[in-house]
């Protein structure tokens, strides 16, 4: 992420690297402090069960946040992810209830496919309909949720209707790490590497930095925009399957209001809402921090109502810090620029 939009300084970017990396370092420090304080006041916080709960919660939020980061990096936003998660969870739940023999992999793919379809609609409307992403995804937030309610009616899929294989998958671990967490890690690493090292990924940053310049530079902006929304949708769909496997109970309201948490995780994770910078690692760290805060408040016996207020304060703090860092980077670049010319 570090060299984004800063060509020509690649040989001497170590100090710049440090400044930019400080954003993610800040979250890590905040996280470490939070864990330390909570663990000292109540050692139960570090029990296996408590850590497991945090990791499972993070897994779902992080998968969503990775997808959201991809879209936000291109200077767009996807507010429909909570609704897409709900539709996918309900689709997969119905599918598994009616075909108990279905392998888990098929469920994962089906969820991602439902989400990917929603994401493609978003992307096509944004790019080829010339409609701002905020408007499109605000619209599909309503539409997708409405479709899910329409389809589900009042019915709810309960754990006893789901095949045991699927529920086992939600609980199973590999070397003590839950499967859901492993899936989230794979998603994170693959997306992170593609964004960092591959042309398609770099082009997303270019589009976010300057849409017009990207267009002039010959980047297929249309296809890349659709791709970014497809990824976000598909990951929201995947998160829906993880949601279904973790909770076992699915109704049409699954994932309502998640969009706020996801955007919060991304913003706290240092992905600038104006595009062109940030990383999926930061977004995932943001998801981890938000989930940890929730469980720390419970352990510290602080009123749960503080949680949302703290999340809001964190968002303001994060974008404020981001602005400070940006100002410092700009100052550094200016100095270097005068050196060169």
């Amino acid at each position, binding site marked *: 992420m570090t060299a984004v939009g800063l060509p020509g300084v690649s040989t001497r970017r170590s100090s710049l690297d440090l400044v930019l990396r400080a954003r993610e370092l800040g979250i890590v420090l905040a996280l470490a402090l939070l864990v330390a304080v909570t663990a000292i006041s109540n050692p139960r916080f570090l029990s296996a069960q408590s850590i497991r709960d945090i990791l499972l919660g993070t897994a779902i939020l992080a998968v969503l946040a990775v997808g959201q980061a991809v879209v936000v990096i291109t200077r767009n936003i996807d507010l429909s992810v909570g609704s897409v998660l709900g539709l996918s969870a309900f689709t997969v739940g119905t599918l598994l209830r009616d075909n108990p023999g279905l392998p888990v992999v098929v469920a994962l793919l089906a969820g991602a496919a439902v989400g990917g379809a929603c994401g493609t609609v978003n992307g096509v409307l944004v790019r080829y309909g010339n409609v701002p992403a905020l408007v499109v995804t605000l619209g599909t937030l309503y539409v997708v949720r*409405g479709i899910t309610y329409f389809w589900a009616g009042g019915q709810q899929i309960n754990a006893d209707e789901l095949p045991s294989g699927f529920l086992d998958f939600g609980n199973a671990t590999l070397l003590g790490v839950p499967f859901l967490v492993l899936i989230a890690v794979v998603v994170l690493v693959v997306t992170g590497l593609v964004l960092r090292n591959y042309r398609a990924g770099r082009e997303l940053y270019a589009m976010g930095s300057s849409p017009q310049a990207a267009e002039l530079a010959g980047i297929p902006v249309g296809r890349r925009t659709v791709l970014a929304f497809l990824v976000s949708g598909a990951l929201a769909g995947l998160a829906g399957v993880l949601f279904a496997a973790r909770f076992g109970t699915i109704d049409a309201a699954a994932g309502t209001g998640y969009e706020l948490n996801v955007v919060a995780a991304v913003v706290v994770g240092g992905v600038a809402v104006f595009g062109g910078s940030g990383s999926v690692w930061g977004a995932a760290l943001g998801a981890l921090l938000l989930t940890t805060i929730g469980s720390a408040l419970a352990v510290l016996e602080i009123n749960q109502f503080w949680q949302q207020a703290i999340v809001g304060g964190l968002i303001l703090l994060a974008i404020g810090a981001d602005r400070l860092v940006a100002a410092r980077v700009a100052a550094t670049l200016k100095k270097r620029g005068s050196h060169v010319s």
Partner: protein
Amino acid sequence: MSAETAAVTDHPTGLAGRFANWNVAIIAVTVLVIAVAAATVDNFGTSQNFGFLVLDLLPIALVALPMTLVIVTGEIDLSVASTLGLCSAVMGSLWNANQPIETIIPVCLLLGAVLGAVNGFFVTVLGLPSLAVTIGTLALYRGLAFVVLGDGAVADFPALYTNWVTGTIGGTPLPNVLIVIVALAVVFGVILHATPIGRAVFAVGASEQAARFAGVRPGRLKFWLYVVSGLVAGLAGVLWTLRYSSARADNGAGLELAVVAAVLLGGVSIFGGKGALPGVIAGVVLLASLQNALRLSDVSNEALNVVTGVLLIASVLAPNLANAVRGAVQRRRHRTDLL
């Protein structure tokens, strides 16, 4: 973003024409929907239902007025529903503390203005993106509302006030609160369309830099718009609490999306610089009438979501498609002329 390029390539007169058309179109659609609903839906045309309709659109209509000005300057305020909720929660806890209602109401309005000023400070003084700031305060204010009041409810507000909000004007079916809505709509309409402030709002939305060169102070303008937005959201919180005689921390949750939807439906550009209040009011009435009519026809709230979402996307997509078609036709005509 893609539509920025569209705005650059669009011919200015084309834009002005499209905008005027949209206002007429949305008002026509609204009238049509009301006429069809009155003819086909039982009980829609009754005076009692009209009263309910106005009470239902009250919060969206109020908050949409300053939101229009904020969006025309190219910013957004997603924290309005949380401001409404926090003011309602504070109203409840002050009432619990036996404060007189005559003190509570001004305090809540002032609180709304202060919450708006916080948004304004972050956006204009620190120069942070308003989308991120107001998503942050959306969570912050709602969280504080729960901290103040928990998940309980406070009821038993004085009947004099609750009756006024739900009551009607004289013997007419018109609810009293209609006076508030109409008065504020006129005030905001005049400010936006007939004063230097309104021209400055449009100028800042069209080009902040150009506006600055023309002597407008964009930061100061936006700051006060956020203050007004918070103040009106606080007023909506007070009226909401009195209408249901129930102060709750989750009052108005999710309202920000409906308000933004209504404003965009009314033809205001999310990129700023374009929009008109008559269109927005039509957008609010259209949304509320559709909801009311569908609910009366036993269509679920959820199906309503689909209608709202499709309307929202269509309202922005339709002019773009029309422009694209017009452009293609003109190009073809041009080519045949050359041949």
